[in-house]
Every structure is written in structure tokens, then in C-alpha cells.
């Protein structure tokens, strides 16, 4: 497991404590999430306790510890979105996707994450699916969005 992170570590030749978060970010970009094995390997490289790294990583919302679905939903729950009814949308989305916030469904199709603020408050409420923004969403447009994704998936099958 260590060897397939070697190419990442070479970008951080000094292996210092302050390299921890950048390393974790690169690993997550590449692998989609932080596994126990990768955290162990980073700990060995930086000589930091595994639990310390886990503590740091769990502090930030952006680190994940399990794989995301093929369609990764990030629902904004920032102040503007919250006021615009994001909580109702979240409940609806959990129903539609059949996953709870922070989870991935068993088939690996959908995952849902609640984000603090995605920085598009003027377009609230909004949801991001695989790096694409869907803005000013309503319960109807949300249903439509999920329906379209499911349809597309069925076609490709």
C-alpha cells in the first residue's frame, strides 16, 4: 500500500508536519477518499501518529473516509441556502437518493454530502453533482434531476 503513495510523497521531500494537509488533499483527489491504509502510510512517512492524522482529517468537512458514489451530491447548507429551505431539500434528497447525509448507497451510485457553503449564495438554494452546479433548485427540479440521472444510468446498463 505504501508504494502507490510514493509518487505523492516525492512532491514533499522534507516530510514535515506542515505537509500533512496538502498530502491528504492530494491523496483524496487521486483516490477519492482517505482509507485507513493511506492514513497509516502517511503517518509512517511523516512520523505522526495515525490517530493524530485521523483527528486532523475529521476536523475538516472536506475529507472523506469512504468512497463516494458515481454521482456525488453536495447540498449546500450555508446561511443563504438554509434560509431558502435547504433543510427541506435535504430531507427530500435523502428520500430520493435513499441515503443519509454523509453516506454512500450500497450500489455505489449515489452519495450525499452536506457542505457548509459553496459560495454561490445569490443562486441559493443549490446542489452540486460531480462538480456541476444546479442552482435555484426547488423540490420539483430536484426530483427531475434525480429522475434524469436514474434514466441515464438505466440507458447505459
Amino acid at each position, binding site marked *: 500500500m505504501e508504494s502507490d503513495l510514493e509518487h505523492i510523497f516525492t512532491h514533499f521531500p522534507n516530510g514535515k508536519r506542515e505537509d500533512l494537509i496538502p498530502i491528504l488533499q492530494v491523496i483524496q483527489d487521486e483516490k477519492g477518499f482517505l482509507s485507513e491504509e493511506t492514513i497509516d502510510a502517511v503517518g509512517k512517512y511523516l512520523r505522526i*501518529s495515525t490517530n*493524530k492524522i*485521523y483527528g486532523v482529517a475529521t476536523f475538516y468537512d472536506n475529507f472523506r473516509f469512504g468512497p463516494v458514489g458515481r454521482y456525488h451530491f453536495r447540498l449546500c447548507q450555508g446561511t443563504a441556502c438554509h434560509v431558502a429551505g435547504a433543510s427541506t431539500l435535504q430531507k427530500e434528497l435523502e428520500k430520493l437518493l435513499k441515503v443519509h447525509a454523509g453516506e454512500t448507497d450500497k450500489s455505489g451510485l449515489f452519495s450525499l454530502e452536506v457542505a457548509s457553503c459553496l459560495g454561490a449564495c445569490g443562486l441559493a438554494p443549490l446542489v452540486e453533482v460531480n462538480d456541476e452546479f444546479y442552482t435555484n433548485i426547488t423540490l420539483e427540479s430536484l426530483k427531475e434531476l434525480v429522475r434524469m440521472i436514474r434514466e441515464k444510468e438505466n440507458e447505459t446498463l
Partner: protein
Amino acid sequence: MECKIEVNNKMIPAREGESLLEALREHGFKIPTLCHMNRFSPTGACRLCVVEVEGMKDLVTSCSYPVKDGMKVKTNSQRVIKARKSLVELLLSNHPDDCLYCQRNGHCELQWLAGEMNVKERKYFAGKLTDNPDYSSTSVARDPAKCVLCSRCVRICEEVQRVTAIDFISRGNETKVNSAFRKGLNVSSCIQCGQCIQVCPTAALLDISHLEKVQAALGNHKKQVMFVISPSAIASVTELMGFKAKDKVLERLTAALKRLGAGKVFNMGTAADIHVMEEAGQLAEMLKNKDKEHQPLMSSCCPSWVRYVSVFRPKVLPHLASVKSPGHIAGSLLKTDYAREHGIAGENIYTVSITPCVAKKYEASWEKNTHQGVSEVDAVLTVRELFRLLRSFGLNLAQMEEEAPDSPYQQSSAAAYKLGYSGGKAEAVARELFRIMKGNSKEKFRFLQPKSMAGKRETQVTIGKKQVGFAWVSSIAEAEDYLDALREEGRDDIHYIEVMACLGGCAGGGGQPISRGFDKPKARKKLCGDMEKTATWQSASENTVAADFFARIPFRGNKLWEQANK
């Protein structure tokens, strides 16, 4: 720089730059704290130490506020008291409130604070914490529902032991102290030293109790329960009960344990003497063979240190002495030697060690210490558990008669008491090495112990024309730093290093009675020193039982020993 500050309309001297908390406490002002730890940098997390400083808009945390000349402080103004009370009420808002069923009932800092702040009702209602406890480890249990997130355990685990087996996970009101990946302590890097239990203000960290096991064995007529009391546990009981070294605490304990149904009660001192003799023998061998590969020899009686080395520093493993710890020497002797001599079947003997250590519970589970699944030491009671046991039987040591422990493991040499504190074991081993190398020559043995516990931690002992270097460290951080320094400076004048994982050695062990502050290890060390003077013999090998043991079973190289130690 010396200066003066005004506290509650009274002038007190202080030193500029020191923390306000230090100055206030030094002059007897009572300031409550939860997160503060002596010798550690302040975090200002619990905010209970707030005081009012004239000219400051907000209350300041005295633990992290430096003294300035002429400052005016109020420690007990209404504003301060109200703030502190609210803080405690908030801490209690999600507490399980099950004090009646709590192990720390009566010894809980949160409970004390609630009393001191005159908290009479639940003012804030938050959902009570319902996290599952973690009983997966062999010696340390965690109950996160009782946790107040003071960070003491996290800091001692990281800064003193360099292990970080537990840390803050997640953020905000989701924050929990937990082990890596929220898995159990049993699969973490925990070295089971129990220092976290010592500093925990509530019952969020506890030892894995062996009390029930022991009580069941006491009620089992087939089993003969044999208690083995370690000298450092005697010192600990003496200290807690306010006895003096001459008060024959071991004899009182023997009488008490006999009353609650013990078959036999022994002094672990003899096993400790055997341990010291064997370790000194290994050291002598290393010196004779000019064995640079194993130099410096390191003590291996601390299970936490052994665990640390095997997990974090496997390269150091060959340096560890291959001697069983005193507890397991005693356990195996009782189940084999003693059983044979007295015609008792080994499986009918139930051995219970009483020590100030929680890691011994872990040591008892090591494969090399078990035979066909049965450990040499069936149960380990910490001093805390011992007191719970005595209390449940209504036994008061102060009113107890005196009864000599059972033969043959009755007495011990001064060496056995020396195992109880940092630096002591090195001296005991040095004395024994001196005897091995010099026989009965007239040369005098000299071992300079530093006066303060924070003093220099190494010394040279002259044996004939030879200089033998002894060093001692307590806590993993100290051990790591010392070993690094030795390597960096390329020194080879140190031949033996005594390593104990707890601060101050077993005198500050994880199984000691809970106490605030760091002055207790010092008191226990002093008691060990006093009891050394009452010991029958000076050096380990003068112990006739131990010497007899070595006469029957040849010194080192004996296959049985090797097997037992591998």
C-alpha cells in the same frame, strides 16, 4: 522579576511573566480548573480559572494570563462566580448523571466542582451523552459519555508518552476523544500505561476491573487465592492512609486479605530480588563479553515500555533484558515451585498481583506469560481496586491487626522497594552488579542519587578499575529524547538504562489512587526510601529465599529461564 499584584484587595508578591494562576495558587487563592496540568503549557480550554482583571473588559483565564506589576485582580467577584457556575452547569448539561453507579463517585472533579459551585438543579437540558463505552483493551477502559473534553488525557498521551493513542476526533459539538478510526483501544497504539486514567477528572477513563474475577475466585472453594503484594503498592497504601513506613502496612494488608478469604498472602519483594539478580547477571555478562550489540541493556519490567518498543521502536528490542517482571516471576513460582512443594495442583492456585500499575493487566495476557491459555498471574488488582475490595468487605486498615505474610516469600531486600521509583531500580541493579563483579572485596559501593526528581538522570559507578554507566528515565518522551541524545553524541559510556513509562516510575503509576497534582509520586518515593531502611537486607542477593532459588536453578543460560523469557 519580582513584583507586586493586588488580589482581592490584598497585596501579594509575584514574578512578572509567570502565569496568574501560578501566582494565585502559590498564595492560597483557590482557583478551580479542569484542563490545567502542572508542567504543561496552558490551553485555556475549560475557562473555569477565569478572574476579573481591572482594566480588562472581559474575564481572563488566569492559567494563560501573565502577571504584570501592579495589576489588580478579583478572584471571587459575583461576575466571576456566576461565570464559573454557568460553565459547570453547561458541562453538566449532557452528563449522564449516574453518579450513584459511577466508579469515580466521590473522586470526581466534576462532582466536586458542582458541589463547590453550589449547583442545585439541571439548568440546561441537552441530550445526555450515550456513547458506548470501550472495554476492548486489556487494561484501559473508556467511557466517552462521561467525557468533558478537558484534553488532559490527549495531552499526556501525546506530550509525555508520545503515543497519541487517543485524540480529538471531529469538530464542534461532535468532538469526541477517541482512538484511531473510532476503533477500540485494543487495536490502537495504546501502551496501556494508564497515565490518562490518572489525569482524567471524571470516569471517562478507567481501568479494566479484575475485582469481579477475584471475588468469584474467593468464593470458589476449589481455588486457593494467593495475593502477591508489590512493595510499591505497599508504599502507595501507606501514603494514602497516612501511615508511616514503620507502621507495618504489609502485615496489616495480609491480615485484611486473610479475613476476606485469601489462601495465602505473599510479598512480591522476593520475586523483585530475583528479578534484580537476574538483570544484574545479564548486565555482568554483557560487560564481560564486551557485547556492544546489546549495550546499553535496558530494563524490561515495565510492560508499557516493552509495548512501546515493540510497536514504535523495534530496533531497540535486542537491548531489552530478557527477564520476567517480578509479578510474573512470583506467579510462575507459585504455580510451579510452590505448588509442587506443597502438593497443590497448579490449576487450583489463583494468583492475584497487587500493584500500582494497570499495564500489568496487559502483561498478564501476553502469550509468553500464559501456559495453555492460563496466565501465570490470574488477576491484577491496582491499588484503587484493592481499596474498593477492602471497602466492600468493610475492612479498615487502620484498625487491622498485624499478621506476617506467608513463607517463603515473606521478606524482601531494600532493592525490592527501589523498584518502586525512577532511579531506584538502576541503583539496585548497580549494587547487585557490584557484588557479582567484586565478590566480597572491601571496596565500597557508591551510587549518587540526584536530590530532586527532575535532576540529572545518570551516574557512573566505579567497580574496581571499571566505570559502569547507569541511567534512568521515566516517561516515554524522556526515554526517546535520552536515547536520541546518546546516539547523536555517539556515547558508549552508558551500560544500563532503567526505563519506566510512568512519570516518576511506579510511584506515579497508572494504577495509583487518583489524586490531583504531581506531588504524590514524590511522597511515595520518599516512603519507599523509608521502607528500604526497615528492610531485612540491603542488596537483592542477601535475600536468602532469592539466593536459594538461584542456588537450585543455575544462573542465566538455564534453559528453563530462556524458554520462559523468549
